[in-house]
């Protein structure tokens, strides 16, 4: 993907604001930051989240509160599909397969935010049932800490 195919940062900001009114979106020095609350579904909790997108890099998402945590009944099992999964308290969701699912021509509002909702719902269901029902691709050892 060449940069000229990318969606303009100003367009990303506009789309984010138009689609997700609960997120406060700012753009400073080619870095988009969206902060606010999302509620993935009618049975889920509401989460305070943060989305950071630096022009030219992969978007990153953080769950600020309630903090992500391992299952109380299995404290040694890391949260599935997270970066920094071996450092409790630092995990952040892996929403897509790098280089395949997402590219800069895509709208953050229509991909990353619903993907995060979907991840949060699967995370809750994993807490409840101990099963990750959302599928996904396993990390290789080398890329476990990649961003």
């Amino acid at each position, binding site marked *: 993907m060449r940069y000229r195919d990318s969606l303009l940062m100003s367009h990303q900001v506009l789309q984010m604001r138009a689609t997700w009114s609960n997120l406060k979106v700012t753009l400073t020095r080619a870095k988009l930051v969206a902060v606010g609350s999302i509620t993935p579904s009618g049975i889920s909790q509401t989460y305070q989240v943060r989305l950071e997108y630096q022009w030219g890099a992969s978007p990153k998402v953080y769950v600020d509160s309630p903090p992500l945590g391992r299952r109380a009944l299995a404290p040694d099992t890391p949260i599935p599909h997270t970066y920094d999964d071996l450092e409790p308290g630092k995990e952040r969701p892996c929403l897509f397969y790098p280089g395949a699912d997402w590219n800069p021509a895509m709208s953050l509002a229509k991909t990353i935010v619903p993907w995060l909702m979907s991840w949060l719902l699967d995370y809750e*269901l994993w807490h409840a049932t101990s099963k990750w029902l959302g599928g996904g691709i396993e990390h290789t050892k080398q890329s476990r800490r990649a961003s």
Partner: protein
Amino acid sequence: MTAIEGSRNPDLEFLLGEVAAAIQITPTQHKKASGHYHAVAKWLSDEGSPFAHLAIEIYPQGSMALETTVKPLDDRDFDLDFVCRISTTGWSADHLYAAVYNRLRDNDIYRPMLSMKKRCICLSYQGDFHVDIIPAVPNPNGVDADDTNILIPDRQISDWTHSNPKGFVTWFKKKSEVLTLKRAQADAQIHPLPKLTAVAAKPPLAVAIQLAKRMRDRMFGSHDDAPRSILLTTLAGHAYGGSESVLTAMHDIAKGVDTFATSDDHTLRNPTNPQELFSDGLTSSRIEKLQTLASELRSAVIRLSSTRGAPALQEELAKLFGERPAVIAVTKYGELLAERRENHTLTFGPTGLGVVTPAGASRVKPHSYYGG
């Protein structure tokens, strides 16, 4: 107005429907039971039977006909009730009862399974369920146009007693009708949804009754004074306001049961046959238990509508209806989410993801979570 009466939460409704599906008798049990009663019907009407020349009609009554079955807790057998209506006149109540009993006793298979109850003959199928056969004759003075009023023998009084289970089923089905257009159906025309489960098609009132009955069973076990299903079902039918929400239907049931239990008049009749008294034997202890159930139902509705987060909600469902159905329901929800993601029918909008019903016109683009 409480939050319960506000907007319907389709995701929570889905969980309640799946809990109900997990606690009802299975299609296999259902099929087995039908097979048994057809065999019984055949034996009663076969050549050599004293009823061979008479018109015999056998039909289910109670929860099986109402689609409100609930598997009993522990290892108790499930009860299935069937009416065996024999078109005869001039027989005494005792005579009819004995004739049906004797005919069943003549069969080598049925003989060891037989026992006598007050108003029916019980066939015990080992380790599975009881089939209660209620002998009946048409009510010669029946006033209903459908000719569903019947007389059944009561062994205690050696006389007939009035009943109308078939009319009751018709009444209940009518009362179960949802008054507003189903949102899922309206939306389905715009966004095709994957197949609806059998439970989704089930009236909210029937689902709410199943949930209320399971709560009763968990609260009172097999206690003699536990509220009877026929009372709950009738009060529920009277109180239900036609909402498409199971939660609202549960709230209606709570209100209806409470109003009945706290009123001065504790008479409840079959709405389709005033001579059949459902409130027969309603002692003060039983009324008290009705009231307890009503208040538990009410607080369950409030807790369910305010609890958020799949783990907390699963725990709440487990407390109310049992661990297993709660886990099954939450797992089914996760499977639905996965299925939608896979076949690209997962939508999103300002309210979140459309897991059960569409949340908006935008579909979630395919993606795979990464990471171990």
